[in-house]
Every structure is written in structure tokens, then in C-alpha cells.
């Protein structure tokens, strides 16, 4: 029976949401196409993670070793390439995350399987996968097929599929002994550092007034900050604003910034890249203002206005002040 292999991603002994999302899609594809679902779990003290994966796949293949405590690219690449070359799964799924930006191309090279990244949908058409990807800043969708191969590698965009609830799999746990690895690595881990600490905590705000590159000039930031103040909200932003050093990193919303959960998120001049949008999935209501009526942010917002953000900011100031 064909196999779909899901590479589990976890941090600090918690499965990442993307793992549950991939498992959901894998079991869906598996049911419809008569494929088994397996999970590759690499970690240290994996009991809790194994428990969280139970019932969600036909089997969990576990490599448990101190060296696998944190994501360690050399070992991960070696172990997974060997596993894939042995089991020859029809499809191997990984999250489209910083992990897989490192891992997936190495696996493609070492298995000879074709790789499609950042996919938002996967179809199986008489045993051959096809994928849907977004291109041109998310404004266009594309459907792509693979070259002929015996297996296929796919990385999945976070949030593309809902998370799995538990299923009714009879899960087999296979513990695999850690293979002997080259002792020397060209990459020596030094440590982690936090980059988002600061005086403003955007994760607790009820109202976020959030600015993106559409703000145009640094001087306009102050203007929007005033609006946030008048409204009793908090100022946040997209990544380019932090890259330009117009605001400190602790204001940034998104995968490499913070996940926020305000009652209302007012997005001003933000296009809606998935790395940004991933950070606002917990928002109650999203209102987007953008000059481009085709901006992807309008596909995730509940309310939209096609307008110049500076005009809207000016008008909002007038309304709220003059109440």
C-alpha cells in the first residue's frame, strides 16, 4: 500500500500546529486513495509527543536521541534521507517553515525526488500528486504537476489545512535506533536569542492599528501612532517596517514576529503575505485598508476598504476625536 509520510515538527516538547494540519490532509488523502499515513518523529524524550500523535496515523516512526533535542540539520537530513530511501513513501510532507527551508532541498537532492514548496493544496490524480501554489505575491494561483518519479516531496503552507482532531487509527509505534552519525559537523550550535522582547506587548491588545509598507515614509508612522493612541489601541506592523528600522521588532506581527489575538485588527497598507497573515489567525475581526483591490489581505479580512490609508487615517482621527 502506498504511504504518505509526515515529518513531525515540534518545539519545546510541543507539536507545532503545522504537524496537525499536515496529518489532517494526509489522512484525508489516505482515506480517499487507500494510502497509509506514517509520521517521522525525531526528538529527545519523545513520550509526550508520541502520545499527542496517537490515533492520528497508522504508525509513528521514532528516533529518540539527545542529539535530536533541537532541530539539528545535519542529523535530520541524514536520518530522513535514509528513511525515505528505505521506505519510498509516495508523498513526504513537511511544513513550509524555516526548518524545511533547510531540510527539504537537501532531501530532494539526496533522494532524487522532485520537490514542491509552500503548497496550499494537494490533489492525487490516479496515484500522481498535483499541488496548488500561490505565485506573484499571492495574487495568482497555480496548479503544478511533477515530473515522473517514484516519490514526491511537498512542503505545506501553515494554515492551508485545518488541524486534525484525533482520528481512529490503530497507531503502531516503531522505535528506531539512532544510526551512527559523522562525529563532526560543519555547523556548531551556540545558542538561542530572543529578538521580540520590548516595552510594548502587542499580544495583549484589544485593538491593533497595524501598518505595512504602504505607509510609504517613516514620518507617517508617527501620524498613525497618534491615531492608535486616540483610539486606545496599540500600534503594530508588518515586517518591512521593522527591516527599515522604523519600528522596533516587538511591534512585528507574523511568523517571525508575534501572533496576536485582538478583537479588531486594522491592517493599513499590508498586502497579506502568508507570513504576516499567519500571525493574525487569532484576531476576532480584520479590517483591511489597501489601495489595491486585488491585495490578498482582502481574502482574509472580514471588511475591506479600497483607499489611500493616509486619507483613512486622517478621517478616523477626525471622527474619533470629534465624538
Amino acid at each position, binding site marked *: 500500500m502506498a504511504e504518505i509520510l509526515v515529518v513531525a515538527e515540534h518545539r519545546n516538547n510541543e507539536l507545532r500546529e503545522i504537524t496537525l494540519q499536515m496529518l489532517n490532509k494526509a489522512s484525508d488523502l489516505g482515506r480517499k486513495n487507500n494510502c497509509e499515513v506514517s509520521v517521522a518523529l525525531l526528538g529527545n524524550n519523545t513520550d509526550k509527543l508520541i502520545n499527542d500523535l496517537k490515533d492520528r496515523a497508522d504508525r509513528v516512526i521514532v528516533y529518540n536521541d539527545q542529539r535530536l533535542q533541537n532541530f539539528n*540539520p545535519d542529523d535530520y537530513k541524514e536520518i530522513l534521507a535514509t528513511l525515505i530511501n528505505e521506505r519510498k513513501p509516495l508523498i513526504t510532507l513537511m511544513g513550509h517553515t*524555516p526548518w524545511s527551508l*533547510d531540510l*527539504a*532541498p*537537501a532531501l*530532494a537532492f539526496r533522494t532524487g525526488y522532485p*520537490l*514542491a*514548496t509552500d503548497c496550499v493544496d494537494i490533489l492525487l490524480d490516479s496515484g500522481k500528486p498535483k499541488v496548488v501554489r500561490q*505565485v*506573484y*505575491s*499571492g495574487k*495568482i*494561483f*497555480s496548479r*503544478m*504537476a511533477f*515530473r515522473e518519479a517514484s516519490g514526491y516531496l511537498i512542503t505545506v503552507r501553515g494554515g492551508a489545512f485545518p488541524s486534525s482532531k484525533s482520528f481512529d487509527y490503530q497507531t503502531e509505534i516503531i522505535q528506531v535506533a539512532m544510526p551512527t552519525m559523522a562525529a563532526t559537523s560543519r*555547523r*556548531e*550550535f551556540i545558542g*538561542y*536569542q*530572543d*529578538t*521580540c522582547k520590548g516595552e510594548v506587548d502587542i499580544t495583549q491588545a484589544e*485593538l491593533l492599528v497595524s501598518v505595512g509598507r504602504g505607509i510609504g515614509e517613516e514620518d507617517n508612522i508617527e501620524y498613525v501612532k497618534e491615531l492608535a493612541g486616540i*483610539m*486606545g489601541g496599540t500600534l503594530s506592523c508588518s515586517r518591512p517596517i*521593522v*527591516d527599515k*528600522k522604523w519600528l522596533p521588532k516587538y511591534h512585528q506581527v507574523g511568523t*517571525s514576529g*508575534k*501572533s496576536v489575538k485582538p*478583537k*479588531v485588527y486594522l491592517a493599513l497598507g499590508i*498586502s497579506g503575505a502568508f507570513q504576516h497573515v499567519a500571525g493574525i489567525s487569532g484576531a476576532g*475581526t*480584520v*479590517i483591511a485598508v489597501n*489601495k*489595491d*483591490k*486585488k491585495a490578498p489581505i482582502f*481574502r*482574509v*479580512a*472580514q*471588511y*475591506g*476598504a*479600497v483607499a*489611500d490609508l493616509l486619507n*483613512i487615517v486622517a*478621517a*478616523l482621527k477626525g471622527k*474619533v476625536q470629534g465624538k
Partner: protein
Amino acid sequence: MNIIVCVKNVPFTQEVDLALDASRQDIRKDNLVYVINEWDNYAIEEAIRIKEQSGGHVTAVTLGKEADEEVLRRCLAMGADEAIRIEPGNLKPDASMTAAMLAEVVKTLPHDLVLTGVQSDDFNNGITGGLMAERLGLAHAAVVNSIKPSDGKAQITIELEGGQDEMSRIDLPALFAIQTGINEPRYVSIMGIRKAAKKEIKVIQAEALGLPAADLQPDLIMEEIFMPPETEGAEMLQGDAGSLADQIVRIIREKGVSL
């Protein structure tokens, strides 16, 4: 320090109405403005900064048509020493073919450091650098947001999710995929680009690279592009700025935020 930077010319697609071309395999590009891929602008800047600090030689490489030489002239104007364009001819390169061709050229040049961007803005594959590193047998890190080279190694930070960075030390030669924000790219004047127009750009034909046929087959075959489904999405508010502001205030209040 010999540094090679891979740069791509990409169409700018914000605030433009994109249209599908007749083949429905790509968009119409005749009316689009091209710019340096955002991530690559940071990569070339980083290379030039390293050169300015500790000496060296920076080569910019692109795979693209003649019109894409613009991106190389921009790199020369910023301070690159040399520029190479690979002419794809009739090939329609995907990420795996692109990586194969770029790696083949890098092989022929001395290199301590090879830089790419994290992703290209048009197709956001995010893998060209990683694939090149494998082909070249180089140490690799993706999403790099600081580089400090010293003594045959580089201390780097790698951006993870949720505001955490990993610090690591990596043996050189290595290939890094550069993340935005690693530096503040310098301004490039039109004059600077004009001056750089006099510098020679070396052109290599893809078929002259001597790659095996399998490397010039795409991994992915475009079947069709299409517009996003119209069904999903926001309720669009109508009116002038004043009326839009009224509606926005009303919605915010309705959702339980007191203004």
C-alpha cells in the same frame, strides 16, 4: 574573501492588475516593471559590506534574459566587482534547474561565501540556495540575518519562528540564504547605474555549461495559473474617506472595542 551572490530580476506586482497570458501558464508581463528581488538586494549589500570591511571580490550572477542584465548593473553600481549572466535560451527553468545552472557557474569560480536570497518574490520557492549548497557540497544555512566571518568560519544568526534566532558557527566555504533586515541596502542612483553600464557583463549560454540532460528537466510542470476564487473574502465597504471612516468606527465598536 571571494563572495558570489545570486540575484534575480522580478516583476513588481503590488498595486497592479495582473492578467493571465494566452497560454494560461504565466501572467502577462509586457506592462510590468522589474526590480531586484527584495531578498537579493539585502544579499548583495551584505556581500559588499563584508568586502568593504575585510577586502575581497564580489561576483553577481543571474540566470535570465538580456533585459535582466539591469539587475546586474545595479549590483555593479552598488560595488560588485564582476557580473555574470547565464542565458537560458529556450529553457524554462524551475528552482531545481536554476540551482543546477547557478551551481555549475559557481563551481568554476573561487568562493568562500555564496549568498542567495531566502526566496524569490515571484515564485517564492525558497529552495534554490539549499539545492545549490547540496550540489556544491557546501555547508548551508537558510534564513540568515547576521554574518560575522573570521578565521575560516562565520558566526551567523538564523531566524526561527516567533521572534527567536539561533546562533551558530559554520565552516567556510558556505552558502547562506539571506533574510531581509540583515542590513540597510544602500541607495543606488540612476547615475551610478549608468556608469556601471560601461562595465562588461560576462554571458554564459546554459547549454555550454555541460550539464547532464536530467539536470535541465524541470521538477515541476506548470499546468495552469488562475485567479484566486472570488467567493471568499471581505465585505467591501463603499464611500468616500469620511464615510469609510464612519463605517470602520461603527464596526470596531460593534466588535466590543470602546473608542
